[in-house]
């Protein structure tokens, strides 16, 4: 199991096109470099447009983007509406009212039109501000950069449909920042502005924006995406690569969970376990999913970091909160869209062989069926081969829990547990009338891995209607639970203390403060795993961890190439070659990157040979790769 490292901007633009420019102010003075943030208006716009393209449209979310107070210092106590309102003072426009009305009317096209016009106008507003200061060296730069920071919301879409215009606009922004001059320091190094050039270039950008983004009639546009009008209306249907809105985060969580595999306790090496190694690769492969997940680089491991969870995973509009996702929404597979906003907390897969049935509501008794459903239905992948299902299930069945220092094999606390935890254990085993004569331990059976294998309605969910029974959820284990917050099926409770309080209120348990503290202590003790997180140091860097995993995956070529198994060989190489290039960014010594790229190139050569079904050449190249791997591998850090 391994995980991809894609930062937000990165995958947002991975497919959609790559461009993350723009910074406000004068960051040439920045110390070590850092990614620029999204402009609040550009961010709200893109998120709202993203929501408007989902089905059903969550208008509350759209309204919130424009109405909520901006969190960034400097914009505090302001909303996006407040910022947009500035331009109305000078131009007697009605952007705020138009956007508000479109949201109230729940009219996607009117919303797209009004919000897009407002954004374009806001960009021009900053250009006009810059123009008013252009005679003073360097003073206009901030407004130019602010304008460009707003333009960032549009540029990726422009690039996809009109590369020429994208290049021209990109060079125009460069020309603008170069035309404003420099104030120097104490009159030293003053660079005079080039006012004619500034006005010429600013005029070009202004005209482009007016022509393409400030129209009211868009009846000829069949998508609600900020595409330049003349292109979207003249080229017929325009294909746009999958994209995700600002605020999305597919990076692994930090700290990274520690992976515990059952066979390792027996001293075995994954390289000697063909099915496990191939399954491990599949668990980390976006290739087994369809679009858009594949383009986003989403694999099983994206949500289940190292068999556990990913508390950072976030896609606005799809995740109700970080660490959750609505996997049967419109985004991943429209054919599987249940048209419900039912974001679920990502569950840990540790101890998976004991946690059947599968799914939050336990809808699948079989892990194999559950896994196929994830691949084919939730994420729109091709039908997996029996071998793929065998491999990935075999791998996942190796997931063990983190060992506990406080639990006996029968789930009873040992002597290392605190007195408070032991008092909490008694409460945990106490039967309450208000719970139908049941105890916590009735469902979370300590001697059965704190599971009962059943579904219960504890009234934490929202029913679709009378008799719907869709508020029943699978009993989760409490082993390692300390590390898997937030809690409940939807992640609505942040801490185990919150969980105790929720049950105390919901079931009128009448627990006093100390009892609640004791019960919380018990849950934390039961839920504590040894060394829960991967420890990185000079001998175990992120790159070395990735490198080791990829090398393990590749050992399956020793079996696949002689078997002349084209389909599974290609899937493996496509996954590893792509990951290897991405992982190079994690090298501590970046000068080693070309060697990593060379290894990836060699894998691509093998791929070509496999596609030509030249198995002899494939074997030769694979042998060459192994030689390079030995030679280079020892130098990587």
């Amino acid at each position, binding site marked *: 199991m391994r995980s991809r*490292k*894609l*930062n937000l*901007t*990165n995958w947002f*633009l*991975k497919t959609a096109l*790559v*461009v*993350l*420019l*723009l*910074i*406000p*102010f*004068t*960051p*040439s*003075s*920045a*110390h*070590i*470099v*850092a*990614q*620029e*943030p999204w402009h609040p208006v550009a961010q709200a716009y893109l998120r709202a447009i993203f929501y408007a393209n989902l089905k059903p449209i969550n208008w509350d979310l759209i309204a919130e983007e424009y109405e909520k107070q901006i969190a*960034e*210092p*400097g*914009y505090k106590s302001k909303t996006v509406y407040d910022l947009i309102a500035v331009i109305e003072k000078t131009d007697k426009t009605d952007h705020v009212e138009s956007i508000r009305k479109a949201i109230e009317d729940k009219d996607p096209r009117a919303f797209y039109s009004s919000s897009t016009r407002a954004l374009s106008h806001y960009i021009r507003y900053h250009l006009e501000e810059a123009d008013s200061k252009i005679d003073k060296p*360097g003073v206009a*730069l*901030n407004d*130019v*950069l602010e304008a*460009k920071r707003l333009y960032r919301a549009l540029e990726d879409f422009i*690039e996809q449909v009109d590369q020429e215009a994208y*290049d021209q606009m*990109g*060079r125009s922004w*460069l*020309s603008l*920042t*170069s035309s404003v001059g*420099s*104030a120097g*320091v*104490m009159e*030293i*190094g003053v*660079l005079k502005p080039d006012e004619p050039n500034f006005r010429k270039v600013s005029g070009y950008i202004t005209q482009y924006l007016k022509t393409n983004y400030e129209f009211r009639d868009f009846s000829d546009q069949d998508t609600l995406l900020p595409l330049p009008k003349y292109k979207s209306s003249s080229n017929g249907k325009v294909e746009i690569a999958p994209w995700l809105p600002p605020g999305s985060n597919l990076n692994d969580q930090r700290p990274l969970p520690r992976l515990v595999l059952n066979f390792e306790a027996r001293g075995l090496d994954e390289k000697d376990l063909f099915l496990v190694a191939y399954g491990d690769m599949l668990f980390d492969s976006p290739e087994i999913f369809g679009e858009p997940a594949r383009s986003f680089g989403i694999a099983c491991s994206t949500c289940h970091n190292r068999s556990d969870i990913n508390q950072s995973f976030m896609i606005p509009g799809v995740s109700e909160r970080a660490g959750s996702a609505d996997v049967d929404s419109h985004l991943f597979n429209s054919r599987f869209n249940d048209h419900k906003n039912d974001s679920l907390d990502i569950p840990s897969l540790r101890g998976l062989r004991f946690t059947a049935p599968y799914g939050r509501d336990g809808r699948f008794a079989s892990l194999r069926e559950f896994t196929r459903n994830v691949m084919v239905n939730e994420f729109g992948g091709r039908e997996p081969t029996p071998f793929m299902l065998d491999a990935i299930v075999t791998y996942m069945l190796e997931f063990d829990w983190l060992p506990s220092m406080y639990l006996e094999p029968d789930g009873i606390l040992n002597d290392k547990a605190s007195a408070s935890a032991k008092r909490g254990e008694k409460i945990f085993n106490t039967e309450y009338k208000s719970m139908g004569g049941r105890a916590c331990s009735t469902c979370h059976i300590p001697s059965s891995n704190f599971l009962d294998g059943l579904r219960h309605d504890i009234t934490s969910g929202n029913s679709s209607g009378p008799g719907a029974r869709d508020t029943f959820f699978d009993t989760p284990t409490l082993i390692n639970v300390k590390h898997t917050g937030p809690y409940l099926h939807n992640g609505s409770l942040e801490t185990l203390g919150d969980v105790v309080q929720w049950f105390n209120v919901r079931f009128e348990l009448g627990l006093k403060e100390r009892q609640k503290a004791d019960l919380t202590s018990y849950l934390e003790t039961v839920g504590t795993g040894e060394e829960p997180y991967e420890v990185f140091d000079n001998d175990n860097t992120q790159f070395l961890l990735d490198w080791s995993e990829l090398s393990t995956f590749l050992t399956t070529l020793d079996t696949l190439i002689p078997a002349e198994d084209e389909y599974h060989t290609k899937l493996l190489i496509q996954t590893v070659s792509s990951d290897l*290039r*991405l*992982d*190079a*960014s994690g090298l501590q010594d970046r000068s080693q*990157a*070309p060697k990593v790229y060379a290894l*990836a190139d060699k894998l691509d050569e093998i791929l070509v040979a496999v596609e030509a079904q030249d198995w002899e050449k494939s074997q030769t190249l694979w042998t060459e790769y192994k030689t390079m791997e030995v030679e280079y591998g020892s130098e990587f850090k």
Partner: protein
Amino acid sequence: MRHFTILWFIITALIISVAGYDKEAFSLNEEAKKDDPLVLAFIPQENPEKLIGDIEIIIEYLQKEMGVPVKGYVTQDHAAAVEALRNGEADISFMGGLPYVLAHEIIGAEVILSEVYRGSPTYRARIFVLRDSGIEKVEDLKGKSIAFADPLSESGFIYPLEIMVEAGLLKRGDDPKEVFSNVYFAGGYQQAIQALANGLVDAAGVSQFADLLLTPEQLPKITWIAESKPIPSHLVCVRKGLDKERVDAFKQAMLKLNQPENKHLLKYVYSPDGYIEASHSDYKSVEVIARQYGFLN
């Protein structure tokens, strides 16, 4: 006589009044000096709004450590920071090497701390190009377009020019526009390196760390063909005449950020790996360059 007496009275009263006023004023100033806040100027970086939030945290730390009131604000740019040091609006400023050597020469500012990144108080400028562009050496850049960060940037302009000078492509003082087809000041490292990654320019002359601003997908497409001599890293300097005790107390408080229990605070002050003590001699090389490029006589 009467008039004289009245005049004398008035004069005496004025003298007493003025003397009394002066005495009171002096006393007030002394007291105010003790309570005067230490004022820090922060130069803007990629996210000035975030920086405003960050400096609140670092100021709280410094106040607690130093036991004196501390204030801070984000300046419009380097020029404003230097001006603030000159007119006493700021006591201490975070800044880059080039503005510092100008401030040192003209207003007597003194560096006291250098930032440390990746274990070093120096970094380098690099010339980045697209890997498949066929540009393999600096000389190949002739007639190509290039993006720099800012005309007042060491790693984002001056040191990249030095790379060209050493390669014989330029002479100091030459207008780079005579060598390149287009010369852009993109406004920052990120804008410059992204302009390259997006194919808008043939090269970018920026900090060695600028490739951290590329996505993992972009990284394989970019390489660098030359790098500059080490550049002393960004720094903290104090205005001329600032009370030595205050300087020392501030320096000690900042150096305590290197301790494991305080390291997490470094992310609120430009995110270096740490600070080390520094003196002007550490920035002599920048001063030499500044003279060579006409910033100083």
